[in-house]
């Protein structure tokens, strides 16, 4: 079994296609939708965790690419600029997955990319622009 978190970017013409259904039905993947934004005539954006057989997962990725879905890795989406961070901890409470977490002895913030679901709740709470979106 393999697992990966990715951002699926759907071109406007694919908005009416049941693509998630195909991932489940044809490729036998467990699709966990972490975030989705779908608006008619605009690019759709879905953050998903895909879980399934490794080769089926690769085939699913090819299927998405052939359709024109742009797949991006999630890990690089939110970037924590440590040198800008003053460890005020303002970002820690809104983070739903503890990707931004606080060592309560050192009182310093650390960022665990693997836990981040790119919900963006941290972006406008950081006064120091220490947390940035990579692709926007």
């Amino acid at each position, binding site marked *: 079994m393999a697992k990966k978190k990715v951002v699926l970017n759907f071109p406007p013409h694919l908005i009416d296609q049941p693509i998630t259904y195909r991932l489940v039905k044809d490729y036998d993947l467990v699709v966990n939708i972490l975030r989705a934004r779908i608006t008619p005539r605009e690019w759709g954006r879905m953050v998903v965790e895909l879980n399934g057989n490794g080769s089926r997962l690769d085939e699913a990725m090819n299927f998405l690419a052939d359709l024109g879905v742009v797949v991006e890795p999630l890990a690089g989406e939110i970037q924590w600029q440590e040198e800008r961070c*003053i*460890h*005020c*901890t*303002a*970002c*820690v*409470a*809104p983070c739903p997955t503890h990707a931004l977490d*606080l060592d*309560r002895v*050192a*009182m*310093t913030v650390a960022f665990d990319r693997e836990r981040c679901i790119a919900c963006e709740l941290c972006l*406008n*709470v950081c*006064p*120091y*622009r220490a947390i940035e979106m990579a692709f926007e």
Partner: protein
Amino acid sequence: MAKTVAEINDKIRQGKAVVFTAEEIIEVVKAKGVKRAAAEVDVVTTGTFAPMCSSGAYFNTGHANPRIKMGGGKVTLNDVPVYAGFAAVDLLIGATVVADDDPRNKVFPGKFAYGGAHVIEDLVAGRDVRLVASAYGTDCYPRKNLDTLIRLEDLNEAVLFNMRNAYQNYNVAVNLGDRVIYTYMGVLQPKMRNANYCTAGQLSPLLNDPLYRTIGVGTRIFLGGDQGYVVSHGTQHNPGVRRSDRGVPRVPAGTLAVTGDLKQMSHRWLKGASFTGYGVTLTLGLGIPIPILDEEILEFTAVTDAELTAPVVDYSQDYPNCKPEILGEVSIAQLKSGEITVNGKKVVTAGLSSYAFAREVAQVLKRWITEGSFFLTEPVAPIPSADSGYKFKPLKERPWEPAQAAN
């Protein structure tokens, strides 16, 4: 066993001063007791690193050739308006000012990506800043326009001057309303889903000298990475508030006006900050050494986060409408644990003041003193204390009405 500042400075000169941070002293007092610790310890260093809005800087740019009288004209630094109502080339910039064409909150919540505090940070970081000036021209100052890059090292005087820093205690902000609000205390989720606080607690300068026994006019301090000075009590100084048995304010109380040489500061300790939907401010490192002159002063410095409390205030209705109600009091230790209980509800907490950097400020100050490069001062004059009757008053609003026509 009282000591004097002069005696402590002698020990610093000889490299014999015993110095602890306001965090370390807690364990020292626990281990040795007040009496022994007061005899052995000479200085306790404090620190804070937090947003401080009433901060600013003034500069003298030197004269252009031909001369221009910027005083009374219009001046911007990186498009941010600067106050030029002085002589020809003296300029003042406040931390919160933003460019005239900044969208502010027109698209709510505004980003406030760049403002006065960022200009100050850019200068301190050694970066070029664009100075644009227009003036009316005089016989002695004929020039009307100037558009040039400047940098800190080329300026004459460049001085950080903050009319209110180092607030003694501060509110814990929550939102009882039903929409997200954007405040100087950060983004507050509706129905009290989070609480933001802003204090260095047991490391905070004025919480370690609650009655201003050692801190006063002229006190030498750590400011922005260099040595600075206390000018006087700061604006909104309000010493006569409710206090604990140990004399520590339970609500925001004393403040300090401080100054220092911007040219010697470091942008590690001075940063522009953008509060979504609120505005720009300056986040600054400030630390004050407290000479342990007697047992009472030592006991003050040994105060712990568990003993310090802060009031929980609603920023949806009560704060904007100047209502004095508080929703409760919580200890700094609870705030730092990540969760407090307010009216029976568990609320997650986040800070705005960096405890990690505050700790570092106190450590740097300790090192300076131990190394013999920083000497303590006696106040030139005291700042108004709890029993002074000095008060922070609200604005007495008297709406202006046009005078009746006199015919």
